[in-house]
Each structure stands twice: as C-alpha cells, then as structure tokens.
C-alpha cells in the first residue's frame, strides 16, 4: 500500500480509539472533557518512558500505562462526576493544561519541550486497525449494556435516573474511566507509531477536536461518531497540499452540519448486526433473482 495512505490510515485509527472514548463520555453520558487529550499524553509518555528506561516489553508497558492513566482518571473523576455539568469542562481543562505544563517542565523524565525521542516504532497499520475495531466494539457493547442505558438515562434527566435507583456518580465514573482507558491506549499507540512525542498537541484544542468529530457524525450514534472521526481526522491529512486552508474548510463543514443538521450526519442511526444481515440478504436475493430470471 502507498506509504502516505498507510500513514494517514494508521493515524486515523489511533484517533478512532480516542473518539470511541469520547463517544462513551460525551455521546452516552453527556459529559464534556477538555482534558481528555492529557490522558492520551499520559498513555504516550508513560509507556514510552517505561520502554526506554526499563526495556520492558511493549505490551507490558502499554498495560501499565493504561492502568496508570485510569488510576489518575479516578482521582480526577472523583470531583468531576460530582460537579455540576457546566463545571466539568472547566475542571478537566485545568487538569489538561496542568499536565501539559508538567510535561514541559519535567525535563529529565520527559525531555521537556524538545520532546521524548527514541521510542521504538512498534505499531503497524494492522495493529492500529485491529485496536480500533476492538475499541469500537467495546464501546458498542457498552452502549447496549445496562451501563450504556443508565448513561443515556442520566444524560437526559439525573433526578429521574436517581429516582429509578441509578447510582449516578458511579455510572458516570465507570463511563469516565472507560473513556480514559481508551484514550490513554490511543496515546500508547501514538507514541509507538510516531516514535516521538512532545507536549504540544495534547492541549484542550485536541480534546475539543474529538468532541467536534462526535457531534459532526452524530452525538447519539456510535456509528455516526466513528464516521465523523474518520472524515474529520482524514480530511486535514488529505488536504495537506492545501496547507493553511484545511482547517478553514474543516471548520466550515462542521458549522454547516451544526446549523442545518444539528443531530449530526447520521442522527441516531446505528449500524447493527441486524442491518448488515438484512443488507446481505437483500443483495443476495436480488442477485439470486437475477440469476433465475
């Protein structure tokens, strides 16, 4: 495959994993995090530093990094799930920017502003693709589980959710931690694909970009969110030749969707196994009918 296409696809897959996490957090639970990219940074740096310093195998480092990020997520999540909704984005924003500043500052460990270099390149397109499929599948199973239902319930009406016995703070925490785990894993893949990370690019703008992707495709649909992430993360790469115009085009596209189809490209529509089966059956019928005729 063309190296450029393969590069774009690998990066898109890595973004898809993070966006699956954002879907769980924002799409299902209605919480906005502007510090989510910091968890990507934690995943990337922790796994990178572990492998460079201690030479442990990649998979072990990935696991430790995800567990570590989730642990930090628990500490941040504790206040976050108890705060009023409009404050969540501000707290996570503060946390994210603090992490970015910290990474800049802890020069001996992270390489500071000049970045962490020398991470072995372990991630291939196949691995990123498989990871993305697994991440999306986990999010899909989560959505249709008791957790997903309770998330959607409390997103719409917390008081009624509590009155039905839903442990709102716990369910929010579960969603937040799942989101953190997915995001930090995307960070691990990012580090071991780029073989270099620096603190820029993990700020609130990144987190905001992910939220935009989810809204673009359809905030109430995992299929839509995935599609939105695919289009919007591939677009700037494809438009690379147009240099500066790409973000303008991107922004105009999103504004058009927000104004004229606020529920996003796909609305609430989900691609389910039943849809696939029915489509396959229809195609087969048509094909079979033609043959007979």
């Amino acid at each position, binding site marked *: 495959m063309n190296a450029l296409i393969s590069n774009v696809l690998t990066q898109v897959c890595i973004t898809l994993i993070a966006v699956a996490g954002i879907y769980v957090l924002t799409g299902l639970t209605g919480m906005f995090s502007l510090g989510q990219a910091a968890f990507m940074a934690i995943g990337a740096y922790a796994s990178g530093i572990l492998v460079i310093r201690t030479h442990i195998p990649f998979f072990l480092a990935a696991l430790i990094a995800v567990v570590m990020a989730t642990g930090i997520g628990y500490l941040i999540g504790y206040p976050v799930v108890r705060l009023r909704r409009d*404050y969540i984005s*501000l707290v996570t924003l503060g946390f994210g920017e603090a992490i970015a500043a*910290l990474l*800049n500052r802890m020069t001996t460990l992270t390489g500071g502003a000049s970045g962490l270099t020398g991470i072995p390149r372990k991630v291939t397109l196949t691995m990123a693709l498989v990871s993305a499929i697994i991440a999306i599948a986990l999010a899909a199973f989560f959505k249709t589980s008791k957790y997903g239902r309770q998330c959607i319930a409390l997103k719409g009406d917390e008081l009624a959710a509590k009155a039905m016995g839903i442990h709102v703070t716990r369910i929010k925490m579960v969603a937040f931690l799942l989101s953190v785990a997915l995001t930090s894993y995307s960070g691990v893949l990012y580090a071991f694909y780029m073989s270099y990370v620096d603190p820029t690019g993990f700020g609130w703008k990144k987190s905001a970009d992910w939220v*935009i992707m989810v809204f673009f495709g359809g905030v109430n649909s995992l299929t839509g969110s995935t599609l939105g992430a695919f289009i919007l993360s591939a677009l700037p790469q494809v438009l690379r030749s147009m240099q500066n*115009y790409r973000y303008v085009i991107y922004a105009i596209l999103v*504004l058009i969707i927000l104004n004229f189809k606020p529920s996003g490209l796909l609305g609430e529509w989900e691609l389910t196994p039943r849809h696939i089966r029915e489509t396959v059956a229809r195609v087969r019928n048509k094909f079979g009918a033609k043959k007979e005729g």
Partner: protein
Amino acid sequence: MSLQVIINGIATGSIYALIATGFALIFNILKFSNFSHGATMTAAAFVAYFLVSSKGMGLVPTLAVAGLAGALIALFGEFVGFRRILKNHSAPTYFFVSSITLGTLYEGLVTIKAGSNFFNFPSFFAEPTVGVGSLVISTSDLVMFAISAVALLVLAFIIQKTRIGRALRAVSFDRDTAQLMGIDSTRIIQVAFVVSGILAGFAGVFLGIKYTLYPTLGSLVVKGFIASVIGGLGSLTGAVVGALLLGILETILLAVLGSGYSTIAVFGVMLVFLLIRPQGIAGSNVQEKA
C-alpha cells in the same frame, strides 16, 4: 512581596479582566462558555496590526480598529454559530461545539494571512518606563491598565444605568420572559456580542503588545476562563475581581516558582476553587429545581 510585583500583577490582571468580562457577558446571556473568544481577540488584533499599526499609526487608531473588528467578528459569529442553534432550542452543548469550531475557523483564517510568524506591534511610547519613587513601571503597562479601567467603568455604567443595560440584564436573567415583555432578545444578544467583541479587540491588542502577536495567541483566553471561575461564572464584577487576583497571583508565582510550575500552580488554584467554592467569589449558589 514587593510593591513592584503587585503593580505588575495588577497590570497583567487588567488585561485578564478585559478577557474575562467579554467571556462572562456571553456566558451570562447564553449560559455557555464562548470558546471562540480567544480567536476573536487574535483575529481582531491582527486586523488592527495589518490595517493600522504596521502603517505607522499610533495606539488609539489601533485600538479603535481592533474594537471595531472584534465587534464585527463577534456579530458574524453570533449569526453563523449561534443564531440557529438558539432558534432550534438545541442543548447548550451545541453552543460549546459551535464556539470551538468558530475559533478554529478564525485561527485558520489568521494563519492563512500571517503564517505561523510572530509580529511585533511598533513601540507606541516614547519613554519605555515611568519612575515613581523607587518603582519602575513600564509605560505600556500603565497605559493598558488605564484604558482597561476606563473601558470596564464605561461597561459598568452602560449595564447599570442605561436602558440597553437593563434590557441586557433582563435577557440574561430570563430570555423568554424578557421577550414577552417586549424586549427584542435577538437584538440584545447582538449587543452583548458587539460589546464582548470590542473588549476582545482591546484585549487582543494588549496581549500582542505584551507578548507579541501570533496566530495561537488566543489560547491565552484560558486566563479569562480561570479568572471567571475564580470570580464566579457569569458575574461581571466577579470576573474583574478574579482577573486582578489571578494577575497578582500569577506574577507572584512566576517570581517564586518560575514559568513552568507557576502555570501548574494557577490551574491548581482554579481546581481548588471549583471544588471548595464552585460558585466563585461573587456567585450565589443556585439550587437546581427538582
């Protein structure tokens, strides 16, 4: 702590106050954080730079053009980003997404014109510093403080004493009721955006003078957010108080901790505020209706 540090802090704080009030005005009326405010500041400052100050004109025309540009950009944003969402009664989260996208748009447009270069405003003042006793105050700090103070006083007067100000407060309090009482809420929202845009234009020029001008300058809007969190979201007085406190705190921390850790400490302070007193210094705690 020396008086010098406090004075520097107040100077920085007065710019933050411009950012925070512009931000709080919109938060008040639409109940969402306008994340395009930062890029509006940058874009307005760039317009003023290219049209006026790069041609050798002074600070006053620069500010005038920046204010005008800010107002126009904010109006454009209101029309493109928020009008329809408001009309559709979409969830407030849409404002948030829309405002971030608008910010990306403005920043992208600035980048097309300016590349990722840094630009310096010409030095507007003959004397770089003014000595008061043993204190040395930079002339630009002094002038920026004075202009910010005047701008905020004028704003306070407008909001407290004029008909437009009363309408603004009414719409902020309850849009639907205000509409029923014959206030054209769309018009008032536009006014809020214009005022917020003018403040953004001023703040953009001041930030440009202080830190040079570059396309991602707008990310300093975060200081405005922090200030309004400390002061109390939506409260204009709170935003000013929070901004001055933040300016002073930041200058002190900078002197004590150096640049990296002071940023972390500032966010730490904000987090502590959110956890201990989420309503901020000025805000009152609103109990959600069951």
